[in-house]
Each structure stands twice: as C-alpha cells, then as structure tokens.
C-alpha cells in the first residue's frame, strides 16, 4: 500500500513539472511585457522594474528562479496587486473556495447516491424515468446557465435567498452557490450509482443473499452498495476537477471573493504571475486529490491493492 502510494506520488511529479514548464513558457511567450499597457515609463524606471521582477534575466534563469520558488511555496509577486505576493493572495482566497467546494461535493454525493439507489430499485418505473431525465438534463446544462437561473428564481423572483455575497451573512448566502455547483455532479453520480447498482444487483452473491431470505434494504445496505459505489469513487477525480472549474463561474456569478474570482480578475487584468500561480496551484490540487482518490480506491477494493 505504502509502496503503491509512493509510486503514484513519484508518477505525479513529471505531470506537475510539465504543467509548470508549459504554463511558464506560455506566459513568457506573451506578446509584450506585463507593464506595457501603462503610460510610457522613463527607461531608468522601466529597467528598475525589470530588474525588480527579474525580467532582465535569461529565460532559463527566470524559470529556475520561479521553479525553486514554487517548490518553497513562493509564486512570486503579483503584477497587479502590488503589495501582495501570489502566495498571499492564494492563501487568503482559497479557504472560502475550499469550503464551498467541499460542501457541494458532500451534497452531490449524498443526493446523487440517494437518487441513484431509488432509481435502481425502482428500475423502469416513473420514479426511475424522472430521476434519469432530470439527470440527463442536469448533465447537459452548463453551470453558468444553472447558477444565474437559480438566482433569478430564488433570489430575484421569490426573495427566499440572498443573490449576492457581500452584505449578507450566515449560511443562507452559501446555499445557492453550493447547490449550483453540486447539481451537475448530482446528475452524474445518480446515473453512475444507478447503472452500477443495477449491475451489482444482478450478480451471484446478491442472488445468494436473496435466497437466504434477506430483504432488499439489507441487501443494498450490507452487500450491494459497497461494490456499487466503486465507480462513483473513481468518478470523484473528474468531479473534483469539474467543481474547481465550476467554482470559477459560481464565484463570478455570486460575487464570492474566492480563488476563482481572483483567477478571472487576474486573467482579465493580465496579471500574469497571479494567473500562472493559480494554474499551477489548481493543477497540483487536482493531481493530489486524484492521487488520494486512487489510494482510497485501493483501500476499499482489495482486488486493486494486490495487483
């Protein structure tokens, strides 16, 4: 188990390195420097700024400086938020994004698995059709459509929930962002759970359990659910990536000062170091979380562990 984890950890390093190299090269291939769109600076000041940000060094020198910084958790200074380093900005914005992301993953798993079980046990009934149609719709409709429509319905028309972030407090302002972020994942998880539970319920050990007189609730609870949830577990990797991407949209729609909003602002302001830092941070996060999912998979499914 430890060996497997270490091997996977080693395997993640080249991917992460590739991410850093590609992102760094991309940013440095940008036409024009980061300060070009401001008023023309006297050459001495321009040279000073270039020296301060190490823009006067050769590309390999700059890359080496950047990489050794990244390893120490230092992503350099932000080009736009002058008094902050990128790491400070990420550190201040990430906890909020993490909270919203974690809550919506939790919601997605609970509701998705629940709906999937209902659909599987009531296969080909009206309940099943309803769950599956809603799920197909949920998968097809992008989050930047879902989130504003929910705002329109529950905040603007019904006045049940606050529409924005600032000026509101408590858990009410969390509800709409979390639900919008969770909806597409609920749809995927429900579909996955249904398909795999139907598959498992047709297997021999379930037939044996039935023959022993076990009720359907006990069969699902003690025998069928665990193997049926394995595909759901392996879906967690892509789901995490999707929630991260979605959080960019949700934070924009609801005006939440999280990492996603910094990312979009940085992108629109061409704050190269901030965008570069967040891309690398997101990449590392996705890679690490995928690793955790894979290791967990091995813990739960002994057939994988001994391969």
């Amino acid at each position: 188990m430890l060996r497997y984890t270490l091997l996977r950890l080693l395997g993640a390093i080249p991917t992460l390195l590739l991410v850093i190299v590609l992102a760094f090269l991309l940013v440095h291939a940008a036409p024009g420097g980061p300060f070009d769109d401001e008023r023309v600076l006297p050459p001495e000041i321009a040279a000073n700024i270039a020296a301060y940000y190490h823009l006067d060094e050769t590309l390999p020198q700059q890359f080496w400086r950047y990489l050794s910084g990244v390893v120490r958790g230092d992503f350099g200074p932000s080009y736009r938020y002058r008094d902050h380093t990128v790491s400070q900005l990420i550190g201040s914005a990430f906890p909020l994004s993490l909270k919203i992301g974690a809550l919506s993953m939790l919601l997605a798993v609970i509701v998705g698995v629940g709906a999937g079980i209902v659909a599987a046990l009531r296969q080909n009934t009206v309940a099943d059709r309803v769950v599956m149609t809603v799920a197909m719709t949920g998968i097809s409709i992008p989050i930047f459509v879902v989130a504003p429509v929910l705002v329109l319905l529950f905040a603007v028309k019904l006045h049940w929930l606050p529409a924005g972030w600032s000026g509101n407090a408590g858990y009410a302002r969390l509800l709409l962002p979390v639900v919008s972020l969770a909806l597409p994942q609920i749809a995927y998880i429900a579909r996955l759970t249904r398909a795999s539970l139907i598959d498992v319920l047709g297997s021999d050990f379930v037939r044996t359990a039935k023959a022993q007189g076990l009720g359907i609730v006990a069969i699902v609870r003690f025998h069928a659910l665990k193997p049926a949830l394995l595909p759901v577990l392996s879906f967690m990797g892509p789901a995490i990536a999707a929630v991260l991407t979605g959080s960019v949209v949700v934070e924009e729609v609801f005006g939440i000062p999280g990492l996603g909003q910094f990312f979009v602002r940085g992108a629109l302001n061409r704050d190269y170091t901030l965008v570069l830092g967040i891309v690398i941070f997101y990449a590392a996060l996705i890679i690490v979380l995928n690793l955790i999912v894979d290791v967990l998979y091995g813990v739960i499914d002994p057939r994988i562990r001994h391969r």
Partner: protein
Amino acid sequence: MIAMSASWEKIRGNRALVVSAVILIVTAAAAMIGPLISPHDYLSTNFEEMLRAPTMADMRIFGTDDLGRDLFVRTMLGIRVTLIVAIIASIVSLVIGVAYGAIAGYFGGRVDAVMMRLVDTLYAMPFIFFVILLMVVFERNFLLIFVAIGAINWLDMARIVRGQTLSLREREFVDAARLTGVSSARIIARHIAPNLAGVVVVYVTLTIPQAILVESFLSFLGLGIQEPQTSLGALVDAGVNQIERASWTLLIPATLLAMILLCFNFLGDGLRDLLDARQTR
C-alpha cells in the same frame, strides 16, 4: 419479453435522436435565415428602446438589450458563432485525434506505449485553466479559440481511435496491403482511416457539445468572443448583469444554449446506441 423491451428501448432512443436532430436542424436554419428576415441588425444601438421586453411589434420577438440592440438578431448570430466554433474545434480535435490514435494503434509496441503514456500525462492536466491562460496571453484571439478547444478534445478521440486501430491492423486487408508493398502512411490513410468512420462520426457528435461548453464558458467569463461579436455564452453573461431588470435577456440565450447542448447529447447517445447494436449483431 426481453426482445420486446429491447426494441421498445431502441425506438424510444431513436425518437429522442430524431427529435434532437430535427430541433438542431431547425435551430441552425433559423440562425442562418433569421438575421436576413429581421429588419434589425446586431450592431445598431437604440437608446429609445433599451431593455424592451419581447413583443411581436416591430419584430422585437426577443426584446432588446441594455444598449437597445435587437436580441433576436444577436441571439441568432450567437448561435451561429457558437455552432461554427464548436464544429471547427471538433474538426481540429478529429484530425489530431485520428492521426495520433491511428499511428499509435497501427505501429503498436513501444511507439504505442510512449504515445499513450503522453496521452495519460496530458489527461491529468487541468486543461480549462490552460485555455484561460492561453486566452490571456494571446489577447483573446478568435482563431485561437478553435485551436485551444480542439487541443483539449483530441485526447478521447485518440484513445478511441487507437483501440479500433489495434484490432483493424490484424485484419486480412491490411496484411494484403502490406504484402503488396503499400507504405505505412498510405495504409493508415487509405485502409485504416476509412474504417474508423463510424466510431469517429459518433464521437464527433459527442465532441461538439463539449466544444460548445468550453467556448461559452470562456465567453461567459469575458475571455472568449469579444463585443460587438457575440455567442450564446457571451449573451448569457450579458443577461446575468440585467437579471433584476430584464430576465428575458438571460432566459432566452440560456434556454437555447441548454437546448442545443441537450440535443447534441441525445444525438450522440442515440448514434452510439445504434452503432453498438450493429456491432453486437
């Protein structure tokens, strides 16, 4: 009984497929013809008709936006842009994916292992963030949207094509071609590629909605299509800003975008089912 339910499923699936195809064709036709019929254009602002609600009068059937521009014409234009971007991006991913997958599958062995290892590595990358980075660095270049989206979507295509090619290359006609001295490049282009058509067609219909999603995501964030040009994602974004005053500016493009995505997904699923049925027969 099983056969009955299977055929029922199939008809039902086909009906979704047919309905989706019809809706998509009608939508595309409306997007092409609509702006020609309407007396308005997508560009002219009219400060006396800002945020006018949808009405049949003066052909303002989708109302106007906050600058008094006609939303029907803009929405039809947006559909055009969205569809064109998606189709071209899918062609980019198709060309890269088929070439890459066919080469890996045809040569097999070490070439295949290295090429697929690269695909696996790329899979682990958060591409959407790279696309944003790309759009930031290269100033939201329109052409780049195609390349960027195409460059994301070729990975799945490459995997599927490789799998098909692995089994195709063992077939007699490939042996026959090889024995008569046809070059590898020519075998891939003339003997392998045509046999991949079925899988590729199905997969492209599933790639198009993904490309639409990426394009509208970028446009929604203000990083895609730039004003005064527009796409469905950009229109949704504009609608969000008017959400309290003029909900139609959000609901119309949002509904159309959702409908187009849903139809492409049903179309792709339906085609895949049909193809699977033929393969298992």
